């Protein structure tokens, strides 16, 4: 089916990690017993008024700048009117025609190719509450409960242009967007907690055509994998409809993770007229140039610049740099370790190998780990000095991971110092030669492989503490 290409635009919602909500002073903390993080304002009680949290503006501007947008010096809030029980006022305070940031881009990399994805706008808005149904959906339930803890949590919506041509590109864009927001420190971007959410607009057209096809909107994709799978499915579905002589209907479809398909939610005829109009209870937002400058200065090195530095200055392979910079905390860990131990590639191997393996196995994030980067550097120095072998080092690293102790402490506590004393090792070498006449014979007959077995036996007898290089040398001296 190579004669079609997809045209995809993403609308991404990210919760900003301010301490308090966008229009009141309730905490934004995730979880909590239902309706405990609420007040008359976020419950939309009659007569209450919103007061704009200036921290939200700061975070939104930061995000806008990090996404290469221009910041509107005059921006305002508007009301988006629609009825739903999770929306306490039955309108959402959002931004319509004058968003805080516009005209940005992200340069993604797919299969070694760089592609610029334009960002139409970034705007601020309030989140809605959560419905809990007695059944599966609101219409099939005998009752529904509403939890307004999330109502009024600040969001930014980032709308891309339809510049993405494949599910891979969409995923790459989403991953880069996530890491930019994380780097900037404005959002936790936890898809599983819903602090990062994504809707897609997608259509297909014959390759080479410039005319846009009818698009559908896909909702409910709760992971990067779901995003990719949903888009793959939808492209296939649209191609099939057209191949069979049908027409694509402009509609909203929901991704069903379990069935692996998209399902129609509502058609355009049922689409809302949101009746946007300027929010009369809030003053327009004027951006002070001086303030904007201080925000600009506070933006840290972003993932792409960092990746470039790791490749060009530290000599890391592109793949390593990509993995390490995908998360700011991981990259920070790496940089801190490299500061103490300058062989960047070795540090990268340990971070990508042992560290990520243990984090995954223990379901931990890098922010939670007990290992300090300077301790990893110390461990690597101990290997270089011959104090421990690489193999023992992995054992020590696991202990560091579990207990947070320094490598030095662990080595001393467990007596793991490498045996590099020739006479001590020679005694054991002789014992092993004596106990394995068959292998000794093989070695003497030129079977190189057998020497590995004998080394193993020595290491086993010393519980891995013998210097393996030395063992190898001594065995060869004796036998060859």
């Amino acid at each position, binding site marked *: 089916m190579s004669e079609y290409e997809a045209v995809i635009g993403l609308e991404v919602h990210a919760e900003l990690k301010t301490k308090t909500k966008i229009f009141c002073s309730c905490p934004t903390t995730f979880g909590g017993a239902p309706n405990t993080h609420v007040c008359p304002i976020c*419950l939309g009680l*009659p007569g209450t008024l919103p007061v704009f949290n200036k921290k939200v503006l700061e975070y939104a501007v930061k995000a806008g700048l990090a996404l290469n947008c221009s910041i509107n010096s005059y921006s305002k809030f508007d*009301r988006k009117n629609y009825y739903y029980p999770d929306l306490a006022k039955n309108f959402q305070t959002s931004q319509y025609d004058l968003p805080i940031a516009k005209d940005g881009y992200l340069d993604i990399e797919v299969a070694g190719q760089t592609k610029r994805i334009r960002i139409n706008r970034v705007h601020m808005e309030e989140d809605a509450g959560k419905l809990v149904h007695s059944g599966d959906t609101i219409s099939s339930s005998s009752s529904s409960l509403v939890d307004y803890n999330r109502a009024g949590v600040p969001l930014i919506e980032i709308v891309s242009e339809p510049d993405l041509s494949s599910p891979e590109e969409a995923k790459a864009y989403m991953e880069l967007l996530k890491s930019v927001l994380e780097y900037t420190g404005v959002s936790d971007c936890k898809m599983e907690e819903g602090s990062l959410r994504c809707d897609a607009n997608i259509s297909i057209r014959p390759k080479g055509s410039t005319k846009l096809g009818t698009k559908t909107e896909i909702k409910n994709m709760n992971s990067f994998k779901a995003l990719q799978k949903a888009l793959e499915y939808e492209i296939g579905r649209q191609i099939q409809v057209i191949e069979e002589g049908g027409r694509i209907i402009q509609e909203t479809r929901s991704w069903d993770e379990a069935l692996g398909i998209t399902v129609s939610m509502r058609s355009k005829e049922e689409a809302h007229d949101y009746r946007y109009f300027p929010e*009369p209870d809030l003053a327009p937002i004027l951006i002070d140039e001086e303030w904007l400058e201080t925000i600009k200065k506070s933006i840290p090195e972003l993932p792409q610049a960092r990746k470039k530095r790791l490749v060009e200055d530290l000599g890391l392979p592109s793949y390593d740099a990509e993995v390490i910079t995908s998360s700011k905390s991981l990259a920070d860990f790496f940089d801190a370790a490299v500061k103490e131990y300058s062989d960047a590639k070795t540090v990268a191997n340990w971070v990508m190998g042992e560290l990520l393996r243990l984090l995954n196995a223990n379901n931990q994030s890098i922010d939670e780990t007990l290992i300090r980067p300077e301790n990893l550097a110390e461990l690597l120095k101990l290997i270089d000095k011959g104090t421990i072998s690489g193999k023992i080092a992995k054992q020590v690293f696991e202990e560091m991971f579990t207990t947070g102790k320094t490598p030095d402490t662990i080595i001393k506590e467990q007596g793991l110092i490498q045996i590099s004393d020739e006479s001590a090792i020679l005694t054991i070498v002789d014992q092993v030669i004596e106990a394995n006449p068959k292998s000794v014979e093989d070695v003497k007959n030129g079977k190189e492989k057998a020497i590995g077995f004998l080394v193993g036996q020595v290491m086993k007898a010393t519980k891995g503490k013998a210097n393996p290089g030395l063992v190898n040398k001594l065995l060869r001296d004796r036998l060859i």
Partner: protein
Amino acid sequence: MQLYEKTAYELRELLLKKEISAVELTNSFIERIESVEQDVGSYVTLTKDKALEKAKQVDEKIARGEELPPLAGIPMGLKDNISTLGVRTTCSSKMLENYIPPYDATVVEKLDEAEAVMLGKLNMDEFAMGSSTETSYFGPTKNPWDIRAVPGGSSGGPAAAVAAGEAVFALGSDTGGSIRQPASFCGVVGLKPTYGLVSRYGLLAYASSLDQIGTFTKDVTDCALVLQQIAGYDPKDSTSVSKEVPNYLDVLKKDIKGLRIGVPKELFAAGLSQDVEKAVKEAIAKYEELGATVEEMSMPHAMYALPVYYVIGPAECSSNFARFDGVRYGYRNKDAEDLVSMYIKTRSEGFGAEVKRRIMVGTYVLSSGCYEAYYLKALKVRTLIKQDYERAFENYDLLLTPTTTSIAFKFGEKTDNLISMYLNDVCTVTANLAGVPAISIPCGFSKGLPIGLQLIAKPFAESTLLSAAYAFESCTDYHQKRPQLGGK
């Protein structure tokens, strides 16, 4: 003179001299309410126990010799669209018949700090939509001067209560004239302050960009006294303005010699009844006698104010009222079988006809395809009206108009002709669109019913407004007249 006929500053003297106690004062008002309420019908909810408890606290303060805040022990009432913690706040609607707010409006907190005694919540047109208090779910309030006549609206309850001696003062809200028109009909002083001078936090919004809380008092001195307590920046209201509040009592007696007054010919024209015209012309003559210069001038866009108001007001209300859906509080239709039918039945049954009419108009003018033609155009004309005012205040300190085109009309007289009901706001509505302050003061009587004079000043020039109103009041006695109710 009876206690209920006195002003706040007169009663304060009596309290300070210990000639009466706050509890006695409150009780005298409760008695007055009991004797005239069946004729007037100002109150939706009475809070006697709370009032007496507060009065007792004030008496204890007096006994301890503590300094008394300016409104200590003064009985008052609040329009029932001002949120009161623990006291139902109905907006005179079935929708909120049993709604008890968990918080106080900022003005309520301020009056509480000033130790005023709240007697109860006052009747209004449902959700502040109307000019006669006839749309109240709880039935109309009557004009104390003639109970066959309407008290005006939407703040009919507060105006009638102050006129009838059922409260020393009251707070209302003014979106298109809802304080000034009933003040005019009931012969009391009604002030709509500058948009942003008084916090709207806790005022159940009708049209957010037009609503402003203001005062009903028996005279201009009381007006200054009450305004002083409720004015000022509120961090809970982003549209309130951070500005130092002047001492309004200090400027009251300022000489008005040389004051430049403009009379907009557009607001002094067609439809004006002869008795009102005569009274206002006499008022103009009075001002000239007092040394002011009065000139006819033009507000070229004033004629568009009503249509602009009837687009912007409904547009904002259609969104503000969306929250009344039966989900969280207020009326809910219990028989609905699904969400949408709950919305439809709840709102069809909970709102009265006028409210539904304005929600529909507002929804229409904001809908796609109509927005540019109606809402956006209205915003543009609103700007032109604002500019009319800016130009006017380059040449004049004040503008003077009748508050209403006629004296209070009779019940039912205009309910069949909505356009003529809406036209009632013609003189008052421009001040809301421009956000400027305006006051209505009594300036005469016709057929036993009061006539009101409106003065309009530039933003935050309440001092000018008050001193000009005080100068007029000082050489007239309309504000001292009291209605005779049921011969009691």
